[in-house]
């Protein structure tokens, strides 16, 4: 243990370097990471948000301060459409993978043969990069030489090829399907892990008391998994709210903007429309909504810890 040196001794050791306090030392250690965070996260984020208050083009030099005009333009323009489409995508790509993932987790939690192999195989879609998933589904849904049309025509469900990605009514469904295919394994793995923590004795006791499968599912399994269900739904919701790659590659936000979400709209506006101010305004509003979701997540996590 180091003790404070008497002042008389200090003069004799004054040529020795001074010791750093724990606080200063810790701060200096954190400093490079902090500097990196400021440089690659905070600075670009603030810069991007600041552009929301300027009329600024990616092509033309200079910018002009316009106050809240960009934000007003977004709020009175595409905001409600983007919010609705983002919510449709987010809810769809959260609920469908959840239902499929839960069903598969329940199946794999039984003592069926080959459960481990099946579990591994089911993970494949989750391991495939989003862009690859998008191209795969783009070919499946292609109006002119896609597998989907060939299959449905083959079994007589449609009599002429459908433009799945070129019709607003089907394009969002196609995007949700592609994302569901990619996401369900993660849901499955998380829920399966949760299911394996549910004591078998509870089920056995309920069975002796005459509870059927459905009753046991709703009275034992679901309550026992409440925490993990809430967590995976919330996390998936937040991720999907900011999802970009599958939508962008599959439809580019089209047709006529019908699959555009906040994520693709920011990119399209900034890098295809070259309108940085408008893109910044969409980004700012999108971030406010995301912050609200993060607050819900933090509250949920805190509640979980309290339990």
């Amino acid at each position, binding site marked *: 243990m180091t003790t404070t040196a008497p002042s008389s001794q200090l003069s004799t050791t004054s040529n020795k370097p001074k010791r*750093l306090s724990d606080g200063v030392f810790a701060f200096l*250690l954190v400093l490079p990471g902090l500097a990196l965070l400021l440089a690659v996260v905070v600075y670009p984020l603030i810069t991007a948000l600041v552009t929301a208050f300027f009329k600024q083009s990616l092509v033309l030099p200079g910018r002009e301060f316009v106050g809240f005009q960009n934000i007003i333009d977004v709020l009175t323009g595409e905001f409600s459409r983007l919010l609705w489409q983002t919510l449709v995508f987010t809810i769809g790509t959260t609920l469908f993978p959840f239902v499929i993932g839960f069903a598969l987790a329940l199946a794999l939690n039984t003592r069926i043969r080959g459960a481990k192999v099946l579990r591994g195989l089911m993970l494949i879609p989750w391991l495939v990069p989003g862009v690859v998933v998008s191209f795969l589904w783009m070919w499946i849904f292609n109006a002119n030489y896609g597998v989907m049309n060939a299959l449905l025509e083959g079994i007589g469900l449609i009599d002429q090829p459908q*433009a799945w990605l070129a019709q607003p009514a089907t394009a969002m469904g196609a995007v949700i399907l592609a994302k569901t295919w990619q996401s369900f394994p993660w849901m499955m793995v998380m829920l399966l892990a949760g299911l394996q923590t549910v004591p078998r004795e509870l089920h056995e006791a309920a069975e002796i008391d005459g509870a059927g499968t459905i009753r046991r599912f709703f009275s034992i399994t679901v309550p026992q998994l409440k925490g993990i269900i809430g967590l995976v739904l919330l996390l998936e919701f937040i991720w999907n709210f900011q999802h970009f790659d599958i939508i962008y590659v599959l439809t580019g936000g089209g047709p006529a903007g*019908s699959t555009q979400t906040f994520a693709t709209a920011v990119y399209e506006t900034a890098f295809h429309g070259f309108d940085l101010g408008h893109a910044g305004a969409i980004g700012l509003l999108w971030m406010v909504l995301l912050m609200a979701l993060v607050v819900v997540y933090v509250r949920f996590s805190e509640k979980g810890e309290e339990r």
Partner: protein
Amino acid sequence: MSDRTLFQSPISRRQALAIFGIGAATATLAACAPTGTGAAGGPAATAGTGSFAPTDFKFSSWSLTEEAAAPAIKSLLSGYSGKEDVTIEEVSFPYNEYFNQLMLQVRGGQFTGAAHVDVAWLGSLAALGKLQDVSALTADRGYTESSLKAAQFEGTQYAFPWTIGAIGLVTNSEILGKAGVDAEDFPTTIDDFEAALVKLKGLGGGLIPYAASTKAAQLKDILIWMQTFGSPLVKNGTVTIGDDASVEAVAWYKGLYDQGLIAADVDRFDARSLFAQGRAALYDDAPVGRGAVTKESPDPDLASKLVPVSRPTLKAGDTPRALVWGGAIAVVSGAGAETAADFGQWATSDLDTVLADYELRGLPPVTEEALSSDVVASDVFGSTFAERITKTATSNPFWVYPQYAQIETTIAEAVQAVLIGQKSPEDAMKSAGEAAQKLIG
């Protein structure tokens, strides 16, 4: 508390901080060091005004991502790098993404050197202030006057013209013949053209009569039809989209879509695939498409069945419309720019190089000498294309505006909204015209 007891480490705090300090300093220096790609700001510099020692440089081209064109470009690059003993770093993005990526890289200073550009993009790229004026290197090299003009913006020679042609209708004469339509006597009016498409549709078998662009990425093709219907698009700085002619053109296009005479979900690359497979009878393309469709086709004789035809007109006797299409090599100021400029001049005007490239890609050259060579003059497809399509081609009036890409995107999305029934042609074109006008200012 001592240093050692804090972290149980043989390294003292000072040593640890010194190591971190050296690491941070190295990282900072590396980050701040010139990358060799720093771009000159301000107005374009002038290339070719003095002697230079060849250095390594970057070359970007969308053609490097295309199976049919990439070998020709690679051969060109290896020819120059062997000749000058330099290394050329290849940069490539697919065509639909290329313009945006190039803009971002040039703007951010990550790209300097030679860039393969569509002549349509020169206005936007020039606005960044990083393209060099190459007029000193284009003088006395035998470029045709029209090709030099096509690679200029506001009177400045921002690029070496590489190939100047047009986008027009390319047909499969065999399929047309089956429907009783003669490719050599192709319909000259819109009404007759539509009637021919109906006949082609009648062949059945899932044939797409006209693989016109319907995806937003290439829906700019509608502009030439608007001009065909009589809309000037822009007149004295005023956008005319929303006028009767443009509305009529879009309504007609929607009619083709609803009748199944054009198909959903098609861009230039889909159109080439469908045409190559014999699933489309005609489509819009530049001469560069010939290489792609013949290479991709299961029909070894497809090349002999390709017939370029003039775009039909609204009334008999009108001049057929076609859109100028051209490739050029622009030089972006910064590291390697002088060598890049020398490469640009060599690639576009050295006779042997140009003819070798012509044999591989079939793109119309831009020098008088190359155009009059036997190789070019004896190419039936090339000369027919030039006679029927390029001869009356005009540039897009939006190209002079740096916001050209935004304008085209706005119009394309409005047309797509009409095709899928979200908006009426009148409403969509009116709002597209207003949005385009707002962009122009």
